[in-house]
């Protein structure tokens, strides 16, 4: 099972804060976005259009990063911490 996290503005788009998904074999981020698209098409489009950053186990990832059972995937909108 993998854990999927949505932060900040993405929570409203995904309509959830966290999700989990059973995977039989390792999959790529691209494959994960296809799966997400089936239930949350808007979220899937945002991932495919690279409008968000993605981390796997708290490390930045890319479209071809492979996700394994037990991993934590997070979708991260552009950061805005600190101060101008």
């Amino acid at each position, binding site marked *: 099972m993998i854990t999927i*996290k949505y932060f900040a503005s993405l929570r409203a788009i995904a309509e959830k804060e966290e999700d989990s998904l059973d995977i039989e074999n390792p999959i790529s981020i691209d494959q994960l976005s296809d799966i997400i698209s089936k239930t949350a098409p808007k979220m899937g489009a945002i991932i495919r259009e690279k409008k968000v950053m993605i981390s796997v186990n708290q490390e930045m990832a890319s479209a071809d990063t492979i996700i394994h059972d037990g991993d934590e995937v*997070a979708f991260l909108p*552009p950061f*805005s911490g600190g101060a*101008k």
Partner: protein
Amino acid sequence: MSTTTDSKIRIQLEDFSVTDEIEAMKKVSRNIGGITTFLGTGREMSKGETISELNFEHYPKMAEKKLEEIRVQSIKDFGIIDMSIIHRIGPIDIGENIVLIVAVGEHRAETFKACEWAIAELKRTTPIWKRETTSTGEVWVQDTP
């Protein structure tokens, strides 16, 4: 409200004392000759709108890890003695403290450079998000200055 100044990387709900944080960093070495601080505070105006409240959210563990990477890289690249980075989360009123960076070194030059680099790097790499509340509603800030 007092908070522990033991850890050099902190993400916390509570406010912090700039004086206490500087004093804590002064104890790191007797060879400190220069200290540069950056303090970010809640600003009232944003893009012509009056902000009534700010709210910060972070990705626990990853945000702390990124701040520690910034600290380690600052020490290595700029030759400073040490650095502390404290960022608040949760609701923050206008004028309140948001983020503090304290860079300590033997001389001022490297601490200025390290401090400026660290705040820019924090904004670029650290998963922390700001939500502004104005009269027209709430918006997650997504620009990258």
